[in-house]
């Protein structure tokens, strides 16, 4: 029995299909990440797992308990953090924590060890109303409240959205610690660097799963060699790479029947992907048949001398963008 088993989960809002036939499992004590653009269906999926909504089709089972028929028992084992801060802003930090402890039939004292590393950081402000906390502190409080009843699974819907970089890093360190306590965690995030810290990642888009794998496998599943091209004039570099591809693409936009020059330095199928800007470089794939030097030469001849190119390990983003294009 896995911690979470989802079979053919489907959900609709009116005519819009939010989730389309999703099946996956999450193991005990696994840190399982979902990444995908806004509107991909992550929140809907998490709300189903949190027993808040019933899926229109399929079933989800947590620790052997169906989320629809056994929701009452299940709720004792779920810690849920919605995407939006949803604690009482007019109650103090301590009152909020005490509130959630009491309605779960426990006390702060009983499970203090579990929340201690997190709660200790906000304890100096325990008499402050939750609405007056900073974003990072609010989130630590929300996590403490979700943990106070010692849940077996944590469901965290974009917990770090809108939180500063330092707090984000701290937050993920806490998740790793909680994983050590044997708590299963499913988490969604728009940040690719956070996804790398998960045991496994599911890529989700338009309500369908594009793939599930460990971060490393996902990066290696890219299949082609990926290069980062840099040049001081990044905008012109991007344009030059784009036009280079367009000129060489198998179906030129001009629809001209003129035969291409046979002495073209690069083969027609050179670029499988259009170049994508990433930070200060442009990522590009080139097939085995040509070398990176030829690309630099081609750039130099189109007025961009001094471009640098180096092979890089594909990031999750690269794979994600590639998978998205295949879908389209």
């Amino acid at each position, binding site marked *: 029995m896995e911690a979470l088993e989802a079979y053919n989960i489907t959900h609709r809002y009116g005519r819009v299909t939010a989730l389309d036939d999703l099946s996956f499992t999450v193991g005990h004590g696994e840190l399982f990440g979902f990444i995908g653009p806004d509107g991909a269906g992550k929140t809907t999926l998490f709300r189903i797992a949190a027993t808040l909504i019933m899926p229109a089709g399929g079933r989800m089972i947590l620790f052997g308990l169906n989320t629809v028929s056994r929701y009452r028992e299940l709720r004792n084992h779920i810690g849920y953090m919605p995407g939006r801060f*949803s604690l009482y802003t007019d109650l103090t930090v301590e009152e909020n924590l005490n509130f959630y402890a009491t309605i779960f039939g426990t006390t702060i004292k009983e499970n203090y060890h579990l929340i201690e590393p997190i709660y200790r950081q906000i304890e100096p402000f325990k008499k402050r109303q939750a609405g007056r906390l900073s974003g990072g502190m609010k989130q630590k409080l929300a996590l403490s409240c979700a943990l106070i009843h010692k849940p077996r699974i944590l469901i965290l819907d974009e917990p770090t959205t809108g939180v500063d970089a330092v707090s984000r890093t701290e937050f993920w360190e806490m998740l790793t610690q909680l994983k050590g306590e044997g708590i299963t965690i499913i988490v969604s995030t728009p940040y690719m660097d956070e996804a790398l810290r998960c045991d496994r990642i599911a890529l989700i888009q338009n309500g369908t799963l594009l793939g599930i794998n460990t971060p490393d496998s996902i990066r290696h599943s890219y299949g082609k060699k990926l290069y980062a091209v840099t040049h001081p004039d990044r905008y012109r570099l991007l344009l030059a790479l784009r036009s280079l591809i367009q000129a060489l693409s198998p179906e030129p936009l001009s629809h001209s029947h003129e035969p291409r020059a046979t002495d073209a330095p690069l083969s027609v199928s050179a670029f499988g992907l259009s170049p994508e800007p990433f930070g200060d470089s442009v990522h590009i794939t080139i097939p085995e048949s040509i070398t990176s030097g030829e690309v630099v030469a081609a750039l130099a001849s189109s007025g961009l001398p001094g471009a640098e190119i180096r092979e890089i390990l594909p990031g999750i983003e690269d794979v994600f963008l590639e998978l998205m294009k295949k879908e389209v």
Partner: protein
Amino acid sequence: MRKLLFLLKKEFRQIRRNPFMARAIIAVPLLQMLILVPAITFEVKRIDLAVTDYDRSPASRELISKLSGSSFFRISGAPAGQAGADQLLLSGDADIVLIIPDDFSEGLAGIGKPTLQVLADAVNATSAQLGWNYLVSIVRDYNRDVIISSGLAPAAIPGISVSSRYWYNPDLNYKYYMLPGILVILITAIGLLMAGLNLVREKEIGTIEQINVTPVKKWELIASKVIPFFIIGLFDLALGLIVGWIAFDIPFEGSILLFFACAAIFLVAVLGLALFFSTMASTQQQFLFIAFFFVMIFILMSGIFTPSESMPVWAQQFNYVNPVAYLMRINRMVMLKGSGFQDIARDMVALTVLALAFITLAIRAYRKRA
């Protein structure tokens, strides 16, 4: 049960911390009582009367002085002719114009028949009608005096003399009539608006999401949201009653216990409505719009200003499901007439049925939608 007590404690703590709520609980009953009760009156006093006297005789002057001597009329002008009188009516400077023709005193002396013309501004039909009635009765008195003094009839004209006594409100004090009604409006506002807003607020700020994942049962949640406003409603009713007693010396003829029992049943009905409307709204703004619409209808149809018995039949039928109408009637009967349980049993039973129906409907809707 322990969980419910804890939830209630949390609700009261939040209500106390909400500066608006905490103030409204005290301020609303005080303001409603002190402003609405003395302000709303149907008494028609100081009607502006303009008189065009073509006759200018001792007889016509005597009639005018009789009119101006009564507390109902204030002579606001003496236009020279018809055109001036019309102008006064149009500008609102006169509510009624009395025109005394130039043959008035001759008519009284037996030459021809004396006539008077009365023009009334009937935009407000009630005050026009009342003013006209007052005027006619003063003219009738005057007429009788003339007949007696001219010796045309003995001092004691045979006829039926009607002596009237107004029961339950001998001085026809409108405050006594309005105050029980204002108390109903007060607890309607507390029960429906405050409770409903509190319910929708959890939805609007998203805390309900977090609560729904906990083992807290729906009924515990509903009870924790409704009970505080039940208590606050009764508290405000007592406060309003005390204010009425101190400020207006309102009589209380019936049983206070019965009065509060009925108010408690009414509050259950109103809280049911608040819960029901809250399932239809996802923001406080939406809730206010829905609640305002229904509260207006309930109050205006309830018979607070005009007797519901004179409303069209369909309106009276609507009042079978209007909790405000029941309590309006019960309050006035208990407070002013001193009616006992047997006198109001029918209304009380109907109100109880309504309360049970509303709260059941609301809980069902709440389970389904929230």
